[in-house]
């Protein structure tokens, strides 16, 4: 054996088959470095020692780093059948050592999951998710029948609060977005139409585009980002604080109490917001046409009356209804299946708004194909 090892705050001395560890200085946690203590453990592992003793007469303040050091010495000593004589340690240190278990808990190594298995698990999970979402949809349809007969567990005040939040609360942002979109369509469209001398048809363009497509889509996107993500976050938070369990245990189904008012509110409000949005959008186009393209108001209105027919308006309204139901049901479902942590709530809100928007565009595509086939 060469020179006995030492490190910051400790010196090992070797005598008669015994190791004496002399501790000095303060053992503050901020200077802890396990690598610096390794020579001590090597010393214990390599020799045939009877016991290890301690001298702490010059030691300063006790910190966790000393405990970690002593703990690793103790487990090495135990493994090597070296006596661990703690008599030389201060009372407080001995006290803390007794709190530490002599055998560290065996950590189960995480099982690696193969790529194939991961894909399989995802597919199974998404299948289950579709099943649950479809079940929720059916449940809501059944329960809305019950609600209309006054047999569901929901309070009128909740429905009214949801209606006001999803309806009146959304008016400013829906108006702003649709006014600008209407104006932009009029402006961009006029550049092309003017090349054919057809810029008096700007009213037809804005009217049809707003009523059939832009107002329903823009409103649904705004509502998905604004209200859908809020629904998901609210329900996910209630999940985390056991509020859903508190409802279930007294026999109130969260489907009735939380999902139904929200689905009803958005399904009612989305078509109404759509009509409002279409009007504001056309007004946006009107403003641009009058102020910037020098069309006369009378011509604009005449063309508008010609282009926008009742079936066109109804088509937009029906689409909005579907969008509203989709945004509300998907958001609530995402909230209901969210985890319990703070980041789960955030993830639920993000997923809800993305799912809402993507779903709205897909549904719109289906409507477009159907309308084409039916010649609408």
């Amino acid at each position, binding site marked *: 054996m060469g020179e006995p090892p030492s490190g910051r705050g400790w010196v090992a001395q070797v005598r008669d088959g015994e190791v004496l560890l002399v501790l000095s200085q303060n053992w*503050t*946690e*901020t200077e*802890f*470095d*396990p*690598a610096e203590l390794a020579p001590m453990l090597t010393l214990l592992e390599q020799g045939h020692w009877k016991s290890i003793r301690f001298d702490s007469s010059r030691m300063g*303040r*006790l*910190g*966790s*780093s000393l*405990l*970690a050091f002593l*703990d*690793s010495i103790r487990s090495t000593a135990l493994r090597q059948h070296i006596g661990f004589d703690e008599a030389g340690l201060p*009372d*407080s*240190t001995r*006290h*803390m050592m007794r*709190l*530490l*278990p002599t055998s*560290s*808990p065996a*950590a189960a190594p995480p099982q690696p999951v193969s790529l194939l298995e991961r894909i399989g698990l995802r597919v199974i999970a998404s299948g289950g998710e579709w099943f649950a979402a479809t079940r929720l949809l059916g449940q809501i349809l059944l329960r809305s029948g019950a609600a209309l007969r006054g047999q569901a567990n929901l309070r009128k005040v909740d429905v009214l609060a949801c209606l006001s939040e999803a309806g009146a609360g959304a008016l400013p942002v829906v108006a702003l977005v649709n006014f600008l979109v209407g104006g932009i369509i009029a402006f961009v469209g006029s550049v092309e139409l003017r090349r054919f001398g057809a810029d008096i048809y700007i009213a037809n363009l804005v009217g049809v585009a707003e009523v059939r497509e832009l107002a329903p889509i823009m409103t649904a996107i705004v509502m998905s980002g604004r209200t859908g993500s809020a629904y998901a976050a609210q329900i996910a938070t209630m999940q*985390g604080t056991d509020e859903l369990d508190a409802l279930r245990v007294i026999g109130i189904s969260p489907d009735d109490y939380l999902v139904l008012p929200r689905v009803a509110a958005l399904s009612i409000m989305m078509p109404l917001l759509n009509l409002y949005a279409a009007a504001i959008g056309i007004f946006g186009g009107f403003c641009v046409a009058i102020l910037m393209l020098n069309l006369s108001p009378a011509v604009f209105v005449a063309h508008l009356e010609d282009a926008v027919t009742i079936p066109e308006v109804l088509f937009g309204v029906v689409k909005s209804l579907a969008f509203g139901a989709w945004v509300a049901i998907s958001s609530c479902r995402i909230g209901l299946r969210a*985890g*319990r*942590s*703070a*980041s*789960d709530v955030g993830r639920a809100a993000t997923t809800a708004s993305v799912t809402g928007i993507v779903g709205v565009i897909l549904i719109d595509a289906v409507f477009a194909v159907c309308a084409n086939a039916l010649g609408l």
Partner: protein
Amino acid sequence: MASAAIQPKIRVRDLSVSYSTEVIQQGVSFDVREGSIFAVMGASGSGKSTILRAMTGLLRPSAGSVCFGDLDYWSSSDARREQIGRSFGVLFQGGALWSSMTAAENVALPLQMFTKLAAPAITALVQLKLSLVGLQTGRDGLPSTLSGGMRQRVGLARALALDPQILFLDEPSAGLDPTSSKRFDDLIRDLRDGFGATIVMVSHELPSLLDICDDGVFLDADRKTATAHGAPAALRDHSADPVVHAFMTRAIPSALIVAPTGDPNGGA
């Protein structure tokens, strides 16, 4: 560096705390000796936790001072307060663990943020703290997978992460069964004896208070001020104040019973 040495001796003088216009407590004064386990006692809603918030820098008191040694906490600069705060460990009610991190990560975060320790050192210290508080399983589980008692333990391990000189415990044994509660009390006393930390705990659990606290202050919910000072056991045996006596002995004093109508003493 992290625990810039402060004197773990607390002097609270004429402390008043309020939420906007509602006064919670006023004119509260007490001293916490170094190395003692100090109890802030009182009925539910008497403002115990609020006083603790004023001591840990979460709520600026409306009047009065909190001094650590010679250092007046609330008249120090923001930077200084933050520095003082690092020598605190706080266990919140129910643990208040960060829900998206595992138990081990919860304990590791203060070490990662406020020390320059290498990753292996942090791992070793985290495992040490979790062993100290007796958490043998579930170290890599999210808080939602842990039981209430385990969460409480992880919360304590996190409070101990930076080897604090002062430990603030808000209802440490709330929600624990009597056996776990007793073990937790023993643990708190062991930590005081081992690390020499000063401990301030808020509690209304009589057995804990009587068992481990060697000094304390009693906050009265109605009079909104401190009405008794001393060790819980001494207050139980000697306090003349009927409210304190009732609290410490679980007896409802006759003066506090609302008399039924018709009783000659029952008038306002």
